[in-house]
């Protein structure tokens, strides 16, 4: 096992950068209708921010941000959101994944399809983020810093 590099600069800079990365990732997911980006890129950014904490400050502090026992369940939850939006469109009377028939009253079909895209991108983002973290946690058994 490689000895921990007790660099103060790396720890401080990564702790300073992680909230900014996460804010940018949320912007990428939420603003995917108007600019490049979307669920996959935003989710990968979120996952990368948590992995940066795992690498620099160790496992115990980074478990406060995203506990490692939530990795695999959350990845399943992301796929579930995507599939559930499709089933909700079926309940509303359309075919599977036809967002214009989502059962929300008082919205025109174009706005409903825009909302459906946002919901689906959120599901993809959660799934990708949790899968990245779960793969890293399974690969890196134990703390790097022990």
């Amino acid at each position, binding site marked *: 096992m490689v000895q921990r590099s007790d660099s103060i600069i790396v720890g401080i800079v990564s702790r300073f950068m992680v909230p900014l990365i996460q804010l940018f990732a949320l912007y990428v997911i939420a603003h995917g209708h*108007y*600019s490049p980006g979307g669920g996959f890129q935003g989710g990968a950014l979120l996952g990368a921010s948590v992995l940066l904490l795992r690498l620099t400050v160790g496992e115990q502090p980074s478990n406060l941000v995203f506990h490692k026992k939530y990795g695999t369940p959350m990845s399943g939850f992301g796929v579930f959101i995507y599939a559930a939006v499709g089933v909700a469109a079926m309940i509303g009377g359309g075919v599977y994944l036809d967002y214009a028939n989502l059962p929300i009253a008082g919205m025109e079909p174009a706005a409903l*399809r825009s909302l459906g895209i946002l919901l689906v991108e959120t599901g993809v983002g959660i799934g990708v983020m949790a899968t990245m973290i779960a793969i890293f946690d399974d690969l890196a*058994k134990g703390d790097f810093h022990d």
Partner: protein
Amino acid sequence: MKLLSYILLLTFGILLIYAANKLPTRGHPDNPINRDTSLAGTPAASAHYIRNAEKEMHTPNVVTTILADYRGYDTLGETTVIFCAGIVVFLILRRQRDGSKV
């Protein structure tokens, strides 16, 4: 053997450069991908997407509309593939419950 590998590499590079010269110009409106009808004479899908994407779902980014709405099944399968990768790594490499270090 090393000389042969360099010759093969050079030949392949020349072949790729020759092929790249014959590619259609990037973004030209007469390219087959940008035409209104496909080569078989049927109406092309890309022209329909570009014309109707903003009107149908109030989303200016055509890439997002194609990925999430017009080709929704495709993205669902993509997400499922990523989920399966995570599940497989979990099944193979997970930490042992009884505390024994693997």
